[in-house]
């Protein structure tokens, strides 16, 4: 058998008999399962492709013995580790070898979801109805009445009842092949060998997820001789865990996975770094009353478009060669809660990205205006939607109110979504942030894939601008 190491170098550095002797107790089923896996790998010629995952439990040292790629996983996590290996190299033949504590207790979530995912993958589940490595405690598969060190009076209803994993796995749509086998006589061992071989073949053919549960012997913790343990499995375990085929593959194989694409040109295309730069219209950093580090806040309810407008402003500023940041803030609701955005624009570097005291505020509703209006700095501007804010509160001295009927204008344009763009047009006109072309270019950039919406958005910008100019003329007058 070439699939076993000639010398078990990892077993206590192959000292003495350990070079060729396993660490298992006399009569333990694990050694048999190891041999069946080794034979199946030999027969199918898969040795170079196998990644075997040693679990936590008695079989933690699987990697001492099998001459394949080996990895050792945290308790219960072998199926997750296996998914990582399989997707890293879909040509690998991944075997998740797990005991009953590992698979059916601590790793239940991982095994169920690996099965649900259904990738071609082989799980060998060794069920001996007891914990071995920790010294004979109750397993999720222990039988009713079974005495263990943590069920000294025998398993009773208070401790739950044995989990039938093969049946559970067969129920999951993602599995392709599920069988339960045993080792207690020559016939069962022959069947087990066939099942394990098939479970590997199913993976090699990319058919899908294969699960073989093996009822195995733990003479030490059952307190029986090995032949007595074989009879215990046959007589006590099999009635609870019926042997046989639970599920056959029906779905067609997975198509082969292409190797990951590392072409730099394709990468640039995918991340959107290939489109042409947007033209600049500013002659320098905008000369406003706000200095070189401008703070803006846009606030409304979810759905008002405060975030979209804020992002447009940010992009417009960056297109012009300045630095800008946008930070959103939402209430806990997915829809309809509060939504406000802080935008900072600076010539070379935005420092503090927050705008607790903005130079300009856009308020889409009365609560936003009431909350943030008092925070606007002297000399600042407040654009608010005068369609919905009918009784504006007084603002701090030196702050100019700019009422703009954003909602009404958007309705007139037949596209109520554009009220935020109306507000943007008004904001830019009221502050002198950018020439009108800057925002038009940013809108073109944002709507590259929706050209039908261009006209209405351009119109919204222009109407907002006009409304702001009129409002400012009125206050000035």
């Amino acid at each position, binding site marked *: *058998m*070439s699939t*076993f190491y000639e010398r078990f170098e990892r077993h*206590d550095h192959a000292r003495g*008999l350990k070079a060729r*002797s396993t660490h298992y107790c*006399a*009569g*333990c089923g694990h*050694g048999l399962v190891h*041999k069946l896996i080794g034979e199946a790998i030999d027969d199918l010629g898969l040795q*170079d492709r*196998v990644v075997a995952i040693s679990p936590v439990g008695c079989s933690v040292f699987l990697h001492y013995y099998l*001459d394949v*790629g080996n*990895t*050792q996983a*945290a308790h219960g*996590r072998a199926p*997750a*580790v296996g998914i*990582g*290996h399989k*997707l*890293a*190299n879909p*040509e*690998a033949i*991944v075997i998740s070898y797990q005991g009953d504590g590992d698979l059916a207790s601590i790793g239940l*979530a*991982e095994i169920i979801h690996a099965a649900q*995912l259904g990738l071609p993958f082989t799980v060998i589940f060794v069920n001996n109805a007891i914990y071995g490595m920790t010294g004979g405690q109750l397993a999720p598969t222990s039988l009713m009445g079974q005495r263990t060190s943590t069920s000294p009076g025998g398993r009773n209803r208070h401790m739950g009842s044995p989990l039938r994993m093969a049946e559970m796995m067969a129920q999951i749509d993602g599995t392709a092949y599920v069988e339960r086998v045993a080792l207690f*006589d*020559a016939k069962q061992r022959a069947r087990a060998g066939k099942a394990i071989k098939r479970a590997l073949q199913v993976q090699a053919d990319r058919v899908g997820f294969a699960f073989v549960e093996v009822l195995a012997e733990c003479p030490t913790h059952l307190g029986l001789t*090995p*032949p007595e343990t074989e009879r215990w499995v046959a007589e006590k375990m099999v009635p609870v865990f019926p042997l046989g085929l639970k599920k056959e593959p029906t779905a067609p194989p997975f198509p082969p996975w292409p190797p*990951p*694409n*590392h072409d*730099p040109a394709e*990468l640039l295309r*995918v991340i*959107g*770094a*290939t489109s042409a730069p947007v033209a600049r219209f500013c002659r320098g950093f905008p000369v406003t009353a706000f200095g070189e580090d401008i703070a803006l806040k846009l606030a409304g309810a979810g759905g008002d478009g405060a975030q979209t407008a804020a*992002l447009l402003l940010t*992009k417009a500023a*960056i297109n012009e060669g300045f*630095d*800008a*940041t946008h*930070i959103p803030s939402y209430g*806990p609701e997915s829809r309809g809660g509060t939504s406000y955005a802080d935008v900072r624009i600076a010539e070379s570097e*935005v*420092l*503090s*990205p*927050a705008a*607790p*005291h903005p130079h300009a505020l856009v308020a889409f509703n009365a609560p936003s205006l009431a909350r943030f209006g008092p925070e606007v700095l002297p000399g600042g501007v407040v654009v608010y939607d005068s369609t919905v804010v009918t009784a504006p509160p007084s603002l701090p001295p030196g702050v100019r109110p700019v009422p703009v009927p954003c909602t009404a204008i958007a309705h007139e344009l037949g596209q109520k979504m554009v009220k935020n763009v109306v507000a943007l047009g008004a904001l830019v006109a009221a502050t002198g942030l950018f020439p009108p072309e800057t925002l038009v270019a940013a809108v073109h950039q944002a709507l590259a894939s929706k050209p039908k919406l261009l006209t209405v958005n351009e119109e919204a910008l222009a109407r907002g601008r006009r409304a702001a100019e009129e409002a400012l003329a009125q206050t000035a007058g």
Partner: protein
Amino acid sequence: MATVSKVSKRPQPGLEPEYCKGCNRCVEACVHGCIAPGQEINPLTGLMPVALHLDECNGCGLCVDACPEPWGLRVPDPTPPRPRAVPADLAPERQPLGEGKPLILKGAHASAIGALLAGCRHFFGYPITPSTEGAELMARLLPQLDGHFVQAVSEVAAVNMMYGCGGAGLPSMTFTSSPGLSLMLEGVSYMIGAEVPGVIVDVMRGGPGLGGIGPEQSDIKLLCRGLGHGGTHAIVLAPATPQEMLDFTQLAFALAFEYRNPVMIAADGYLGQMTGKVLLPPAAVKPGLPAWSVHGDAAHRGNLINSFHLAEADLEAHNRHLQAKYLMMIKAEQRADLYRCQDADVLLVACNTPARMAKGAVRALRDEGIAAGLFRPQTLWPFPIKALKPLLREVRQIVVVEASDGQLEDELRLALSHAGVGEGIELRHLRRMGGVLPSQREIVDAVRAAVKRRALA
């Protein structure tokens, strides 16, 4: 009858008695009664191996199939063991990108794109606010590059998928946030123990427990001092801008493979959500394949990914090896950004988004004539004490500005104490929590007050 003659020619089994544990499973398997339970104790093993009497044996092999020991009962096998290749490192390839235009990206998106530029094509994660945008972008972009995005059943599963993928020698990553990081720490400890590379971006939010979804720097302690059980450490990068989210994520992959260790990126909830200008690096990376990987191919068949060392001496030697690696990181990987520190007598220490507010504060304080400077650690572990030390000659006060209960300050104090410096320097702090970041105004006020108190004293 042909079958019978074939059977009769089959070789009989042999047994080296020292490899028999005397389980007697073969005794029952033999239908010809050729095997009897042993009566004599083997002096080498102290066990009683079975006794073979092969006169009636027809070489059916059922006893061999019943023997649980690979080198126990067996028929001689003339095939020699298959030779094992000696794997070589396949180095990553640098791929120039040419001139890309600036991108306008959210911090979380910038980090995801940094990962793609580093050659990462495997993402494993579980959605958690405020880190999810990064995962969502990966879900959209990876399929276009024939990569793999897996939404795992939990953070526990996600980090173990990274353990598998990293063990196979390929770069992988996840985005998570504080409660998710807690769940991943078991796996991080295994990754460190088994020397598996991978990148974890932690977009920190308020805690403890479910805490809140606003930004905090609540995991500095975990990232620097508590990466699961055992003596663990990993490089912790602390970006402050969307640009650094991209740059540091790309860098993190290189460091992860250089040291065979996970790399942690400590971001805050603000930074994950913040949109800003991002320039592309000059080159992308096509990953190689390290010699140590368990890739599932002939070249790497002899390899093992493992953190379990049963013999005390082996585990101690392994730990000394890990600690030598940590020492190399401490020597080579300290990173810091200094702003007007040269002549500063009051030093602000801050990282992530609060460092931006602190930078604004330094500018305002300098305008008032206060000699303030900002020391911004870009690696939280190792703490950049080498860059800090020379500044301490001028510095009379340090003000630590952070969105946590003092976790950055603890790292600073540890670093000062290990270096045996900082005595006589007054240490003050400004801390906000719960999703509130220190504002520039608060920082200016705090520093002003500290300086005033010093003047009075």
